């Protein structure tokens, strides 16, 4: 069947606001709360144009009171509404995390499933533009570490729209993390691969289905968010040298598509995790452990490698920041080193 879908090229920011707008048209229970989401259209443009269409009753600017509006999202969701609460920078979770992890994430469980909390916490993540230690973190693994939240981390506009629609329709709390450096903003350099063809109509991408961005045979690069775009550029360079990298875009980390990861690593025999969150006790260790737990069916040709932010706060100075956050060159170098380091005895 080949139904021709009408598509346009959209930035990730445009795709997200389009998704929210379409869901708000479809379901009057959906509304947005957050700082500067109204007239400004969201600091990272995730709600651009929505205030003009839906007005201040449904696109609600809040005081700088994250605890108040995260708590209000919980109360409203318990009453059957479907709030989207924007936490401008994920780094700000520190001022409201009690509402998120002790309540939003746990109330359904403590109620024995008798309460639904269909709320989306939408938040900007990532560095690369010198915003320093309090405005550059990813932190998605911190949400994923604690039970009760689905965690969505799109890498491109097509996925961003479908995953946002799925997030809004999900009856559970969803933390939706958009990387600022792939939103396609006019004031921050971005990876152009994230701006792509997006169908006009609404569509949902199910959670827990990773995407094989590129097939390969020598190494599996498991990655997500902006790092997917870096991995694609790295794979292009590697291909010029005859190295074939397979790239897995996780898209969601709760739920995690373990099947796709394991099948790919079983095929290539090598795993590199490329992650912009912190290295220690995080996503990269989780993926490595997953593979380690399946060594009865997977034969590794090289030790697992991890690229992520070392145990330092994100430094401000440009050369330091670019050093700490894994870059395209670093992915290329890591793959080459991995190919040169077989499993020892």
């Amino acid at each position, binding site marked *: 069947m080949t139904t021709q879908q009408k598509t346009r090229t959209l930035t990730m920011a445009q795709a997200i606001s389009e998704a929210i707008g379409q869901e708000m048209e479809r379901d009057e229970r959906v*509304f947005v709360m957050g700082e500067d989401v109204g007239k400004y259209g969201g600091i990272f443009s995730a709600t651009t144009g929505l205030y003009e269409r839906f007005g201040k009753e449904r696109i609600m600017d809040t005081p700088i009171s994250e605890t*108040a*509006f995260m*708590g*209000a999202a919980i*109360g409203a969701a*318990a*009453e059957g509404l479907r709030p989207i609460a924007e936490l401008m920078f994920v780094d700000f979770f520190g001022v409201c995390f009690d509402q998120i992890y002790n309540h939003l994430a746990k109330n359904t469980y*403590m109620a024995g499933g008798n*309460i639904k909390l269909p709320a989306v916490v939408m938040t900007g993540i990532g560095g690369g533009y010198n915003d320093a230690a309090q405005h550059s973190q990813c932190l998605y693994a911190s949400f994923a570490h604690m039970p009760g939240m689905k965690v969505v981390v799109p890498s491109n506009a097509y996925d961003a729209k479908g995953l946002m629609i799925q997030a809004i329709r999900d009856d559970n709390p969803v933390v939706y993390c958009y990387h600022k450096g792939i939103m396609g903003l006019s004031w921050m350099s971005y990876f152009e691969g994230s701006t792509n063809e997006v169908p006009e109509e609404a569509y949902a991408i199910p959670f827990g289905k990773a995407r094989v961005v590129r097939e390969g045979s020598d190494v599996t690069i498991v990655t997500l968010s902006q790092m997917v775009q870096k991995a694609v550029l790295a794979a292009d360079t590697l291909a010029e040298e005859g190295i074939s990298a397979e790239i897995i875009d996780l898209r969601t980390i709760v739920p995690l598509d373990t099947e796709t990861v394991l099948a790919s690593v079983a095929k290539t025999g090598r795993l590199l995790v490329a992650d912009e969150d912190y290295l220690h006790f995080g996503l990269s260790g989780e993926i490595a452990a997953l593979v380690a737990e399946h060594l009865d069916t997977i034969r590794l040709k090289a030790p697992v490698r991890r690229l992520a932010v070392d145990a330092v706060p994100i430094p401000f100075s440009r050369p330091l920041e670019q050093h700490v956050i894994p870059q395209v060159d670093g992915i290329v170098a890591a793959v080459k080193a991995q190919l040169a380091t077989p499993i020892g005895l």
Partner: protein
Amino acid sequence: METTSDRLLWMYRTMVEIREYEETMAKVYLEGKLPPKIQKGLAFDIGAGPVPGEMHLAAGQEPVAVGVCAHLRDEDSVVGAHRPHHFAIAKGVPLNEMTAEMFGKVTGLGRGKGGHMHLFDPAHKFSCSGIVGAGAPQACGAALAAKKLGKDWVAIAFFGEGAANQGSFHEALNLAALWKLPVVFVCEDNKYGISVEKGDSTAIASNADRAAGYGMPGVLVDKNDALAVFEAAGVSIDRARRGEGPTLIEVKTDRYYGHFQGDPETYRPKGEVKALREHDPIPALGAVLREQGLLDDARDAELREAIRSKVQAAFDFARHSPYPDVAEAHRHVFVD
């Protein structure tokens, strides 16, 4: 509850029920926790017995719960705190399922996964939280939902005086006033945040004064009296229902037990509780009812007997209910 007489009688009956419940729980909670049945050398074992874990009882604080809830309808929301039984009972949460929850039984409100600080009853629009101050923003959300849905429902946030020093309280008050939300914040000043006296934690004598900083009415009820709470709450709840915005009420109330059962209460002056009990709010309301001809000895005995049976039945239900199967631990992290 049509007439004021009905409401007064309901308040009295409900206070008696709360007291009976808390006094029963105070005893049942200690079952299996004291020597010689516990590990040698211990004075008390918090994890033992049919009701393990912490237990915060509200005996003495009944006027706050009934004075407010006497004005509520089923559709109104109540968010309580870590000491929640009096609010839950006054909001109509069924005793059987509530008690079973505290026993950790599968028949409990949360299938045994919440416990006594985390009671959720969506049918009666009741919830609570073990985190001090966390409920106020959530009550704002319930009120926001009522407003968005075009309903005249109100939301009540109950919390202790200790919670008024949390940022969540201040953020919630500003948001509620800013958005003119139909919410009433009810602060129970029982004088102690665990062991710390209010004067050692709070710079002003009455939290009601803090309302002015948010542009909302602040009302101080300076006695532990159900009728006084009833009057103050009535004005505030009517105001909220009319869409005129939030109110902050502080009630000076009395905590008869420790912060939790097993609290040595070394911080409390000797004889304080005995003195407080001499001004018990239940006989005080009873006297008013008697003056109005709404209560006499025979009627009082009859209602107390009925309440004793009801509370006993709830504890029996909880005791005889099964524990959840261990597989239950893995269910309901998400709804299906």
